[in-house]
Each structure stands twice: as C-alpha cells, then as structure tokens.
C-alpha cells in the first residue's frame, strides 16, 4: 500500500442553475490572454447537448482515454508509444479550432466613432483568430438551455448510445447542467500521451499540471484527454489546462470556480488513495465495474492502519486530519451519492458528481403528482427510464443500478426532511428503505443543503504540511541509534531525524555543563542552559539528600 493524498471535487448537479459564473470567473482569472481566447478551463454544458468541444464524448472519433489491449493491459486509445512517436509530425486526431469555436470580439469603436446619421451603428463581430469580420456560428455553450432544439441535442453522443425509442421520449422529459473542469485523474491519459514528459501529477495534492518550460507543443495531450480539458495555446505553442487554482488551494482557499459558485454546489476536500492499486483498478475488464473499482482505491482516513501507512508514506498529519473531515470523502465513500464522470475512459477521474434528481421531480410535478412523496419518487425513478439511462451513460458506463440507488437516496432524504420540516417526527423507515440510519440521513442532508463555507471546502494548506515536515512533530519511536561510522568515515551515514537529534541535544544540554555540575555535587542543573522543556535529571534535589537534613 502506498498512501497518497489528492484534492478532489464533488459537484451537486441538483443545485446547478446554469448561470456560468464559474466559467466567467475562471476565464477572467486564467484564460483572458492572447492565445487562449477559445479556452475555457471551466465550462458549463447543458445536457442533453453536444458539449465543448463539440461531441467530445465520441471517443470513436477523438480517441481519448484508455483501452485494454488484447492482453488486458492499459493502452491509450490513440495508440502506444511507437505509434505516437511515428505520428508526431502531424497529430492525426486533434480537434481544430472549428470543433471548439472561433473566438471573436466586436469592433466596439464604431459605436462611438460612427458619424451622426439615421442608422444606428452596429458593432460587427471580428475573428480573434484571423482578424477578419466573421459570422458567429458556434461557441462554448451554443446549445445552452437546449438552444437549437432537438436537432442539436440529438447529436449528443450520449443520446446516440441510448436506443431510438428512448430518444424521442426524453426530448420532452428533462434537461440539466453539467459544469466541467479538468478531472485531475489518478491515471491521466494526457500525461501518458505527452512525449516530452511535461505533464505531471503533484505528489502532495494530486493536481495535474503542465510544465510550461518543458512542453514542446507536440499536442498529443489534447488527443489523449477524453474530456478534452487540455488546450493548445496557439500563441505560445504550449499546452495549458485547469490548474485546480493551485496558488489558491496551496494557501487553503477554494478554487475560483468554487469560490464564486452561486448555487454553492461544489465541495473540495482531501481523498486518500492507494497509489499502488490505481493501474489494477483502471484495468478492470468490465466497464461497469470501474466505478466500484475506483471506490476500492480510496482509503478510509479513520482506519488506524491507513493512518499509520500515511505517516510512513509522508502524508502530513494535517492532510490526514483534513481527509477525515473531507466532504468529498463523505459524499463519495460514506454516503455514496457522488459518481465519477465517464469512468469508462479508465482515467480514474477525481471530480465527481451527484446526479440530479430534479428531472424526476419535475416530471412528477408536471403530471400533477406530489414530487416529494417518497413512494411517488421511487416509482418514478423506476419507471422514468430515460433520465436514469442517460445519467447512467454519463456516470456509470451505462449501469443503471448505482444511479438508481443514488436517486433513491436523494428521494428518501427529500421525503424524510419534509416530514421534519412539517413538524412530524422523522420516519426512520424512510431512511432504512435506502439502507441509511436516521442520523446518516440528517448528516447527509446537512452536507448537501446547509453546509457552510468551511464545511464545503476543507483544504489543508501546503505551508502547514511543509512546516510539519520540518518540525517532525511525530517522533520516530522505532528509531535505532546507528552503530559506528558510515562507509566514508565519521558522519557519512544517513543523518539522524531532527527530532532524535534535538531530543539528545536537549538531554545533553540539560544534564551536562561541567562548570556547575561537578562530579562531587550530583543533582545540579545548569539553569542557564535549560530551555524550560522537560524535567532534567537533577532539577530537584534528590530525596535522600533532603532526608539527611
């Protein structure tokens, strides 16, 4: 077992109102530069919809993520090492600017400089790529709120996976928003595809970054990432991606998208995982088993064995403690209401989603039923196949069982909490129906509905972790005094841990000092050297001396 810590995110889709505040603030913070005009590290998609870049989920075309080769080993879908090096002169499957959208601005100047006349001056759109006047035909959220109607939504690759009869039905049925950032995967394909080795995962917090000095612009990462969350800066010729706002999270602040989220639907916290089992979990043969496999990689920070291993593997105590309080851990592993986005890409994504119950509630309300009655909801979840199947294609590789289970939990919570709100006693049967206790139900409700800032974002700072590493607050009890010199003479061996050194130094200082502690007068302490810590030998007169008096 090798314990590693990662900052992960959970988004509660029921709360997303599709306001794009996260996208806009992220863009203002990170991609308001020349060369990244078309880049949205954070974007919000309306589902069903084609997404950004268009139809990025169609991996038959874009070749993102991993597949298993004939021997059951992981291989990037776009090809292994040899194939990549041979195709390095022109990436065969890279989305062009048209697949994202051609960014534009307006010649606002004409609004103020136009001569007085009968016609109202108009600001015309100009391309930010070619500088020519252009016709605006697509953007990062062109099909927002199902804009463009069924024609556009029908080309959603997830919809295409669901059968035809379902397809027609659901167009009337539901819509929800899906905010997306980089998944900061445990097994990222962008990294595997990078010929220069410029993309790396930070050992401290698991954030996946591009070293801008090492990137040589081979563009393979763009193809590798199945979520298409690596972008090519066409001005600098380097790859760029969501940084999980590392300058912010390092000092304990949430990412910009989380901080500014109007619906307060994002949660950030630490997850502990077993790095040794990632590859094994990502190579599970059955796509639908990947969700459970990834859950199996996560470790329980309350488990004493895990805590010991974490200490051994250098995970700072403050991070283990944060992992225990982590809302992300609670939603993913304890309550099991959060699901990974497209686990079938086998990248082990680390931004998870609580699927929305609102399509079901809305459908019930629309048909004149009580949308918060547990029985009604349970029945609707079972009969409204379409939203459930769609969600399953997004979050569990098509297996409807986990999605149904999550939706039933959310439904039970709604119904249970309504009773409480109306002054009735909580009905523990409603909790038991989804395998939860009344206490767990209320705890989950608190986390989902009223969790405050410091409950939603439990982010240990790097400074504390570093200070702790210097301090060595944990004294190595099993430390053995090395015998003799190292192979290259005195002091050539591995240095003793600082805590051991200072322990001995303290003892030495407190008990030595020939000036005031001659052999004939035992039981003296040099108080000038005493730093107030511990109780040195001889601090107090020995008892037998006292009795003699």
């Amino acid at each position, binding site marked *: 077992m090798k314990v590693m810590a990662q900052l992960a995110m959970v988004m509660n889709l029921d709360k997303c109102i599709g306001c794009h505040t996260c996208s806009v603030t992220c863009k203002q913070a990170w991609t308001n530069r020349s060369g990244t005009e078309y880049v949205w590290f954070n974007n919000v998609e309306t589902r069903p919809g084609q997404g950004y870049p268009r139809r990025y989920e169609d991996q038959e075309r874009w070749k993102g993520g991993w597949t298993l080769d004939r021997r059951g080993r992981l291989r990037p879908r776009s090809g292994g090492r040899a194939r990549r090096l041979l195709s390095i002169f022109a990436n065969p499957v890279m989305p062009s*600017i048209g697949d994202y959208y051609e960014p534009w601005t307006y010649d606002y100047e004409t609004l103020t400089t136009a001569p007085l006349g009968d016609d109202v001056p108009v600001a015309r759109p100009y391309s930010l790529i070619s500088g020519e006047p252009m016709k605006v035909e697509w953007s990062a959220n062109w099909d927002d709120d199902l804009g463009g109607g069924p024609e556009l939504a029908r080309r959603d690759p997830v919809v295409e996976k669901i059968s035809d009869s379902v397809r027609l039905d659901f167009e009337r049925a539901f819509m929800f928003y899906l905010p997306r950032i980089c998944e900061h995967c445990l097994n990222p394909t962008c990294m595997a595809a990078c*010929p220069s080795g410029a993309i790396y995962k930070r050992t401290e917090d698991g954030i996946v970054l591009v070293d801008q000095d090492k990137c040589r612009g081979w563009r393979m990462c763009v193809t590798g990432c199945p979520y298409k969350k690596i972008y090519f800066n066409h001005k600098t010729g380097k790859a760029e991606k969501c940084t999980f706002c590392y300058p912010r999270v390092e000092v304990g602040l949430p990412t910009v998208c989380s901080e500014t989220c109007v619906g307060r639907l994002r949660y950030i916290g630490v997850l502990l995982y077993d790095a040794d089992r990632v590859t094994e979990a990502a190579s599970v043969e059955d796509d639908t088993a990947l969700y459970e496999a990834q859950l199996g990689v996560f470790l329980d920070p309350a488990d004493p064995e895990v805590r010991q291993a974490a200490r051994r593997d250098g995970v700072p105590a403050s991070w283990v403690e944060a992992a225990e309080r982590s809302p992300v851990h609670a939603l993913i592993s304890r309550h099991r209401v959060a699901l990974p986005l497209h686990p079938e890409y086998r990248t082990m994504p680390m931004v998870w989603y609580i699927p929305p119950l609102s399509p079901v509630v809305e459908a019930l309300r629309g048909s004149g039923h009580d949308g918060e009655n547990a029985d009604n909801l349970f029945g609707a979840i079972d009969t409204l196949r379409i939203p459930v199947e769609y969600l399953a294609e997004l979050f569990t590789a098509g297996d409807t069982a986990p999605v149904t289970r999550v939706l039933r939990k959310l439904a039970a919570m709604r119904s249970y909490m309504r009773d409480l709100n109306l002054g009735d006693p909580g009905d523990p049967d409603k909790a038991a129906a989804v395998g939860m206790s009344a206490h767990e139900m209320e705890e989950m409700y608190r986390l989902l509905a009223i969790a405050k800032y410091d409950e939603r974002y439990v982010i240990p700072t790097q400074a504390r972790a570093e200070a702790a590493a210097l301090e060595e607050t944990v004294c190595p009890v099993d430390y053995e005094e090395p015998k003799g010199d190292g192979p290259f003479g005195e002091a050539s061996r591995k240095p003793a841990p600082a805590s051991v050194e200072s322990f001995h130094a303290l003892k030495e200082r407190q008990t030595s000092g020939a000036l005031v502690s001659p052999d004939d007068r035992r039981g003296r302490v040099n108080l000038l050297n005493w730093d107030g810590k511990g109780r040195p030998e001889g601090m107090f007169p020995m008892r037998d001396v006292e009795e003699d008096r």
Partner: protein
Amino acid sequence: MRLLLWVALPYAAIAILIVGTVWRWRYDQFGWTTRSSELYESRLLRVGSPLFHFGLAFVILGHVMGLLIPENWTEAVGVSEGAYHAVSLWGGAAAGLAALAGMAILIYRRRATGPVFSATTRNDKLMYVLLGGSLLLGCAVTIIENGVRGGYDYRQTVAPWFRGIFLLRPDPDLMNGIPWLYGFHAVFGFLLVALFPFTRLVHAFSAPWRYAFRPYIVYRSRDGRGPATRDPARGWQPITRR
C-alpha cells in the same frame, strides 16, 4: 575569400550554434516549442508535415553517409564507387524531393490559410528562405551535378574538407574548383546552422526519444519555494484583434 568561406564561416556557424543553443536553453525554455499551427488547419498539414519531416530525416542520414564516412571505408566493405553513386543519386533525390515537396505544401498552406499566415513571424520567413534554399540547392546538386552531368565524386573534395573542420585540420584548398552549386549549398547550409538556435527549428533538439522508455504516469513534487516575485511571465498578453 577561400579562407573566409571554407574555414571562418563553418567555425563561426558551429560556434554560434553551440553558444546560441546553450543561451536559448538557459533563457528561453518557454519559447522552445514547435509553435504548431495544427489548431488552425490540419488537412494540408497532415500530408505536408510528415512528408517534409521524414524526407528531411533521410536527407540528414544521407549527409552522414556521404560526408562523414570516408570513401575508403565504403570500399573496404566492398561497395564500389558506382554502387555508392547510384544509392546517393536515387536515394538522395527521393529524400530531397520528398522534403522539398512537403515543404512546398507547408509553405503554400502557410500563405493560403489566413490564421497560419498571420501567425508567421519574420524570423520564420528568414528561416524558410535559408532552409528552402539549402534544400533546393541540395536537390539541384544531386540531380544536376550527380545525375544529368554524369556524376561528380564529392567524396574526394567536399567530404574530406567537411571532416577536416571537425578534426581541426581545415583545408580550404580541397574546395578549389568544386562545382559552384556545391559551394552555394555548403554556404547556405552553414548559414542555416548559424541561424538554427534562434528559430523554431530548435524543437528538433528536443526530439522526444525518451518517451519510448519512460513510464506513462509522471509524479513530481512541488518545489517548496515560496511565491516568487518577478515580472509577469510571457504568455500573459491581453487579447487583441490582430
């Protein structure tokens, strides 16, 4: 003049290449990139770029074969001058023409595609002149001097001169009376060498051969340095209409 062209120029070019590359590596790793324009246009690139690059790889291989390996070595392993000449002529012409054709496609693409053209710098244009000139002259040398005019044994003159440069025994007299196409090709070549570290061509130095041997997943520790104070990094330019 002979001394200038066949001794001073090569050494100056090589010195600039080495010093320039070290300087660029130390001060401009951020600018060390292919500066790909595939995002703007990929249809022509997909044909032109591999054609050019693979052609060029064989061209370089040919130069190693023709310039660095002495004639008596090839004769020692039983390759006659006639056989060598045939390989050099047909192989060289094929590789050179492939690279030239690829480059023609790429230059056409660069001129014809609006966004690609506006992303072309003056540095690029100068580099294209030298690279294209070298390629063109190289093809001319191979086809005209070696093919049409029946064959010139450059392994008696140009190749020993070239090796002499690296053995620190430069002998400009060897270049007396060589066909003028060879002379121009060599001069263009060394000018290109001198310009090399200051252009996008440096991406050739970071050919990612290590990729074949590294594990897929890369972990790296954040360095514990505190927040640095410095000027805003390059790459943070405001958005403007061109």
